């Protein structure tokens, strides 16, 4: 926060000096220009006829969505059970793989810098590809069904869990590890006796956190055939049965709220 000397000799105070002010204005200008270009591009690709029709469409939609078709509920219990399983089994699978990947990526436990880079690459790939895209690929290979969904959710979660886990591993206190080595413990014993207790709470928190997110992801993988309630959602939307769609939504909302509550409680208990 510099003090400037104006031509008249008077000293003024500005929040930033002239150069930074100029840079900051330039930055905003560039940002606005980019934004304008993007808006134009999108506007150019839009069929404005439909957009003006939107309020009418929205009103018609809302009208068709309410009241919800509650009789449909009976057919939704199995898909919801499937959805929960996709999330849970997918998270379990991801955790099993994330642990070794995290140890490979953490600077203090990686056997070799090349191994670390490899682990980081796995994480980036897993994270960049959305669960839905993984689902598309897996349904293409394995056919529609739960297995594709579980693997899709799991593959996406590996990157997330490994990243948080390896950051936790890098933050541990190294002094007890030194002490354990000095008693003659082997490397694996140092990990099991010294590292695991230190990262265990983080691990539990990460697991539950990801499970909660996965519940949400599992509700939609069915849209591309990977099982769960997304299948019903897809069917109902395709046949334009909007009242059924509302029922499904309500059920999803309840599921998500419960999952978030469980996750928040467990994470609070760990602290």
């Amino acid at each position, binding site marked *: 926060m510099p003090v400037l000397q104006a031509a008249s000799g008077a000293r003024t105070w500005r929040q930033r000096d002239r150069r930074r002010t100029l840079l900051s204005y330039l930055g905003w200008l560039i940002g606005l220009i980019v934004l304008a270009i993007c808006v134009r591009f999108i506007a150019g690709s839009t069929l404005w006829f439909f957009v003006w029709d939107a309020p009418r469409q929205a009103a018609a939609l809302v009208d068709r969505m309410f009241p919800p078709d509650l009789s449909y509920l009976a057919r939704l219990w199995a898909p919801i059970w499937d959805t929960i399983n996709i999330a849970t089994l997918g998270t379990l699978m991801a955790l099993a793989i994330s642990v070794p990947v995290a140890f490979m990526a953490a600077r203090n436990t990686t056997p070799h810098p090349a191994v670390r880079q490899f682990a980081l690459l796995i994480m980036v790939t897993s994270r960049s590809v959305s669960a839905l895209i993984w689902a598309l690929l897996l349904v293409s290979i394995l056919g529609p069904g739960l297995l594709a969904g579980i693997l899709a959710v799991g593959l996406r979660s590996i990157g997330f869990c490994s990243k948080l886990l390896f950051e936790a591993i890098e933050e541990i206190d190294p002094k007890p590890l*030194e*002490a*354990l080595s000095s*008693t*003659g*413990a*082997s490397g694996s014993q140092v990990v*099991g*006796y010294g590292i695991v207790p230190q990262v265990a709470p983080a691990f539990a928190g990460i697991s539950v956190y990801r499970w909660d997110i996965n519940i949400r992801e599992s509700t939609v993988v069915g849209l591309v055939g990977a099982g769960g309630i997304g299948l019903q959602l897809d069917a109902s939307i395709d046949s334009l049965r909007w009242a059924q769609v509302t029922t499904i939504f309500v059920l999803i909302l309840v599921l998500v709220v419960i999952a978030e509550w469980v996750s928040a409680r467990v994470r609070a208990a760990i602290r």
Partner: protein
Amino acid sequence: MKRYGRGETALAGVDLTVPQGQVVALIGPSGAGKSTLIRCINRLVEPTAGSVRLAGNELTTLGSRALRRARRDIGMIFQEYALVDRLTVMENVLSGQLGYVGFWRSWFRRFPQGTVDRAFELLERVGILDQLDKRADQLSGGQRQRVGIARALLQDPQLLLVDEPTASLDPKTSRQVMRLLMELATEHELTVVVNIHDVALAQLFVPRIVGLRAGEIVFDGAPADLTHDRLTEIYGEEDWTQAPVGGADASGADPA
């Protein structure tokens, strides 16, 4: 009996022999190499040159498995206790025997009954048996150091390395810990090398004092021989008189 030779530039030409059963205190200014010397002995720091011999066995040339076996005979006590905070006192003490059990036994904490019994005895000896199942991070500094001592002793070591045991403790606890260490050294006939920054404490408890300065030994003798001149040699120029403000002498007697 141990003998050291030259080490890395933190230590230059340290030649030290400690007969079995003796307690040696290392003193010296920060950066003199005391910590490095201690860690060179069990190769937590690798000496770049020279030899370290424990009871005639050369330690610097050992492969990793043999080194682990050798480390079982060397107990170490750390300045900041180096306990696994989330584990209980008992688990921390038992970790002293990790060199003797396989991975799965250590994972499930299934140590032999003999080890468990000795752990009980040691915990009682150092005075924290009632804290058995408490998590290490729930203890005070002095209590944690006792856990560290019990852990090192559970190894039934020939040699005990102690790195600044009292640096993080208050004066009274410091004395208690030093007293405990000396008693245990006698009881178990241990050879001990203690790294200490509090010269007065060293003089009170330890029969042989070695002074390090800039990686070299500049003093080796009894506490009584540690005159002000010798202290200056080790630490540099300083007023070493111990008279507190107000004129009473160090022992607390009133001035005449």
